[in-house]
């Protein structure tokens, strides 16, 4: 498909065409802009929870089988997973309460931040 396109399309080099598109305005400033720290926070949270799902998958696969086999009780199959999730939930709650997943702050919150050392 790309080859077809290469054969078909015209090439008319022209400098202004290659300029960055900013809705027709003349571009200002670089693209290395400072963006919201929240993107970083979210990425970090994702890392944690994504890995957690990796670790949960093996459990999920064996769960039903383990229950089927009589030798393991419900507590010893379900318990560790609940503990695991509980720890994660504590983590999530902590992140939530500390504003890691809060994209914008309300004026009251900003004000209360200012007082802090």
């Amino acid at each position: 498909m790309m080859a077809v396109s290469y054969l078909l399309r015209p090439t008319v080099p022209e400098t202004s065409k290659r300029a960055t598109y900013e809705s027709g305005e003349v571009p200002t400033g670089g693209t290395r802009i400072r963006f919201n720290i929240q993107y970083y926070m979210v990425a970090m949270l994702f890392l944690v929870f994504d890995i957690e799902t990796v670790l949960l998958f093996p459990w999920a696969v064996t769960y039903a089988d383990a229950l089927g086999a009589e030798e393991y009780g419900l507590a010893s199959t379900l318990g560790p997973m609940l503990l695991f999730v509980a720890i994660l939930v504590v983590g999530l709650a902590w992140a939530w309460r500390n504003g890691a997943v809060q994209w914008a702050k309300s004026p009251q919150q900003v004000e209360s931040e200012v007082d802090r050392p």
Partner: protein
Amino acid sequence: MVNALIPAEWLALAPTLVLALTAMVLFVFDSISPRSTNRPALAGIAAIGAIVSLAIAVWFAVAGTGSENADAGYDLWFVVGESQAGAGAINLFGGQMVVDQMALFFMIVVAVVTAMVAIASYDYMAGHTYQAEYYSLLLLAATGMSTMAAANSLVTIFLALELASLPSYALVSILKTNRGSVEAGLKYFLIGAFSSAIFVFGISLVYGVTGHLQLEAIADVVTGEAEPGSGHDVSEMGGLLGLGLLMLIGGFAYKTSSVPFHFWAPEAYEGAPAPISAFLSSASKAAGFVILFRVFTTAFPLEATAEIIGLEWTHAFIILAIATMTVGNFAAATQENVKRMLAYSSVGHAGYALIGLAGLTVDGGELVLGAAMMHLLVYGFMNTGAFLFVALAEYWGVGRTFEDYNGLATRAPVACAALAVFMFSLAGIPPFGGFWSKYFLFTGSLEAASANPAMLIVAATLVINSALSLYYYSRLVKAVWIDDPVSGVDRDFGGSPTGLYAAIVFAAVMTLVLLPGFGPVADLAIDAASAVVVS
């Protein structure tokens, strides 16, 4: 795994679990009241958690948990199960964890250092924004170190190692606007990540050769009692195993700040908040040593491993011990900065503890290994105390060099008396606990020398370095006690911070008490060592 959830078994891990639980409680506290500056509550929770952990560990150790020769008459075990005392090491989760005397010994070290650091941080971290985070990370790192004490498989060892390391990275750089702290954190982290990569690769090679990650299972393959899953001949893969072992040593060297991965230590300890320096250089180092001891004594029996790789691994430790001692002490002797001097001296002490492995022989060595363990315990008190004194100095805002410390004794005689105790104990001169542990190391090396003459060199290096260390340790004592304060410097710094003082005095008292009270410690350590050496 079948009985993993039956209370009697896993409750043996209670000291570790208490630490983990405390960390969780701190997180919950912080979640309920984010950005809380309720320092008494936070420091209190952390300290109480550590002390409870300590109490349980001491109780278990005294009651004979995980020991084979519990003294009759201790009937404290009822909570965890009546039959466990004196029944030997308790294997948990299919041998992934083990609670024996050595594990308990190091759990004690970790818990006591954590408690002191938590109490001291109450003052040191006053005015800091991230109170709850600080204590949570501290307890999490302590959990990791405590887990390291009980880890009995390369999997759990690596997990625990990282659980201890990751919060430590953050703790070192927690003073976010302090360039030193950030730089220290960066260097600590980069070298930590690098060495853990090496460590994992080493694990993968060992796994490739033996087909197991559980330490006893590895040992069975190495000694030829069991076949690896693939059925190949282990003895033909000596090169790979040797390389793996070398890489493992690299990982451990980082954690214990030994040569050749020691160069992060002065940076990290100098830049980090002083209580964290204390924490890392005492608890973290001790935890690094416990897995080092466990891996090499349990998984790689000296004789069998030597047959496969063609070299006794004790030789590596002899070289490392000599190099580490010498590098640490000589570098420390040239420092002008107090914290940096302590950091290098901490490297030197890692060298002393390495003697524990260097002195192992085919048919024994529990004395020298036990001595290394004792040294780490005593070191836990004296070194923590010394760094906490630096914390006190930083709290008062006196400078960083020896000159800045001049004449502090006129202002704070009690703390400076404690400092003198720490310094002389670190140097290993008699009226303090440090004397015993160093003496035992010396005796142990001499004993091992009958089987391995190279240990004579080690013993000689130990003595020479101890003598050298007296020079720079006494220099600090001289500065605070004898030298006159620099004129023109305003010495009117505020207050006597209770928490810091309490921790420092406690450490000093323990350093002193360990002199007459060394008997039980020595018994415990030698019992623990003989359990792992013989098995």
